[in-house]
């Protein structure tokens, strides 16, 4: 059976709302409009306006109200129409949600989920195209998840809603309509994925590629191309940005001795930079080539289609980076 990411998210919300009356969803256009991206479609009819709450355009306000409700013991799911708008509310995500359990020595847990599309969409310009994985991933107290497939979306969202800590759940608009095969196990209402565990999407022995969200798709495509040229790439879908599954990454690098990281976000202080540091700290002696990061270009997202394409990692970029990692000296000649 096939399922789109949108259906996966919708069914996960539906099941968790039906399982726990404390779960509610709040955000702009989640109710009568059926969700700006239709993730909450049908939920208003099923659960009513007390549990599917349309807010005014007021991110700082409703993110704060959500955190307050979580202090009280409810389990809010706060939808940002896109994560770009979460900047209006980042104080509540960091200062009010992530730190409270610590500051109160465990009295004030915050079981809340902040979710919505993250990263570059298509042709929406700089203020609507940015990856926040590294931003939220750097903050202790938060858990940060980034699903790729329908299985990820279902399993991770259900895990996030059940989790007692604040979770930032980074979806991708361009994946909402993508279909993935799903097993009976994934479709079961008890299905849930562990937070903090990466998934090896494709095994290989020559090079490790780490990626998340839409870049998993690109990395798998790159691995396919590379396979034809005799390079067996191991593709790791991170799933969880924080906690980061350092052991899976390092185990893979110790096997392949080469690493390429892929993400849409900026290079400086990015997820790839962190993975690179982790591998240098824990598996330095296993590396046979420098680690290479494939990231979004270090610029605000341009609008023009040709420039936008250049600003976001492409399958070819991954292929070339992997080749550089595998045949280092030839790459030097190639660059020169």
């Amino acid at each position, binding site marked *: 059976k096939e399922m789109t990411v949108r259906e996966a998210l919708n069914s996960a919300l539906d099941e968790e709302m039906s399982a726990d009356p404390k779960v509610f969803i709040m955000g702009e256009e989640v109710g009568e409009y059926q969700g700006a991206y239709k993730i909450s479609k049908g939920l208003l009819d099923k659960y009513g306006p007390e549990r599917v709450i349309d807010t005014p355009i007021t991110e700082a306000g409703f993110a704060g*109200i*959500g955190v307050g409700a979580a202090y009280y013991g409810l389990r809010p799911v706060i939808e940002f129409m896109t994560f770009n708008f979460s900047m209006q509310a980042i104080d509540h995500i960091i200062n009010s949600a992530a730190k409270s359990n610590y*500051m109160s*020595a465990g009295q004030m847990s915050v079981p809340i989920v902040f979710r919505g599309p993250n990263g570059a969409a298509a042709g929406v310009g700089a203020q609507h195209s940015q990856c926040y994985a590294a931003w939220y991933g750097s903050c202790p*107290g938060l*858990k940060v998840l980034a699903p790729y497939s329908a299985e990820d979306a279902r399993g991770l969202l259900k895990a996030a809603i059940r989790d*007692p800590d604040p979770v930032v759940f980074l979806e991708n608009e361009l994946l909402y309509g993508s279909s993935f095969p799903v097993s009976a196990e994934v479709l079961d209402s008890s299905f849930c994925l562990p937070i903090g565990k990466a998934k090896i999407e494709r095994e290989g022995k020559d090079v490790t590629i780490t990626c998340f969200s839409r870049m998993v798709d690109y990395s798998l495509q790159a691995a396919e191309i590379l396979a034809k040229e005799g390079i067996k790439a191991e593709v790791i879908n991170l799933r969880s940005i924080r*906690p980061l599954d350092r052991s899976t990454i390092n185990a893979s690098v110790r096997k392949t001795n080469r690493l390429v990281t892929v993400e849409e976000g900026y290079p400086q202080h990015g997820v790839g930079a962190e993975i690179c540091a982790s591998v240098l700290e824990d598996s330095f002696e296993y590396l046979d080539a420098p680690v290479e990061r494939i990231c979004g270009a270090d610029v605000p997202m341009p609008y023009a289609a040709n420039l936008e394409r250049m600003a976001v990692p492409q399958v070819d970029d991954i292929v070339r980076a992997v080749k550089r990692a595998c045949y280092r000296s030839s790459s030097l000649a190639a660059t020169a």
Partner: protein
Amino acid sequence: ASSDPITVETTLPFIPHNIDPPSRAVETTPQELLAFYRDMAVMRRMEIVADTLYKSKLIRGFCHLYDGQEAVAVGMEAATTRKDAIITAYRDHCIYLARGGTLFEAFSELMGRKDGCSKGKGGSMHFYNKPERFYGGHGIVGAQVPLGCGLAFAQKYSKEENVTFVLYGDGASNQGQLFEALNMAALWSLPAILVCENNKYGMGTAGWRASKSSTYYKKGDYVPGLKVDGMDALAVKQACKFAKDHAIKNGPIILEMDTYRYHGHSMSDPGSTYRTRDEISGIRQERDPIERIRKVILSYNLANEKELKDTEKEARKEVDDAVAKAKESPSPDPSELFTNVYVKDLGLEVPFHFQFDLPPLEVYASQFEILIDIAYFCRYLEWIGKRLEQCFHDSKQLQASEIA
């Protein structure tokens, strides 16, 4: 003291906005008045002692004192049950105390000790007593207002007939998110009572310099409001009772508590550059909240001067004993550094070098350091070897290409 009701008139009238004000005749009891006196004396003493402890460097960082504003804490507490929630900003010591917190835990927290109400991990601005529904203790000016409206949201969601008191200052009243939260609270009729403690200064900026409208009780526009003499615990109690009834039936309301802080904004502020000493001493003489209750007690013959003096002495002793005990409390155990980041401490990321500093291994720490150094040195040698090999390889290639 007896619990027979007596009725006392508030010193000043309530000034309403879009609502009929409550009666100025406040029902109270001798018992309650003596408790007000005692509790405020303890609070006053607590803050004075905190000042001393700060100056002797036993309290670090930020420390915001509440002396002058005690009537708000006790009056509000008298009008609520512990099913009602309270949330405030960083000037939180006395609200915590009013909500059933202990002096010992408060002073332990102030000094960063393990017996603190947040095990020494919160500090002055982050006191909580969740079982008694005191939700902190928040350091970002104004952020507690949406949070408080969220508590009220949860109360309504859970179909409870309780309210949340959301405290903020005249400074925070200019924050955008206050209006965002108030808008939603009004749209959804949340049982939220916004209590603006107008102590006249946002840090060192006088209200009139920061707020185009200094009628804080009117700032909700479509939300009704009430200006209250915040130096009169009885007026505060009356207003909070009134607001509670209103909020459960109709949604949010703003209470502006006209009050004053004697201390500077925080310990780095002597509190004398932006206001005159005469202003402070004038308020002390004319409007002091403890004096106000003392006068009521004496005029109704509920206690004599000596008995009130004894109460003050008891308060002093209680505070001093708590401080002495708190000073004995040890610093938090190093292992507490990494606890409570997450509820189950799962997914906790302990940096590599910290793993060796945790208690069970502490004894061996020095030996470990040597081992780690050796390990790193070996890695380094290995790395140099690899680099040399690489250079050799590259130069061979280079030669080959040059020849070609």
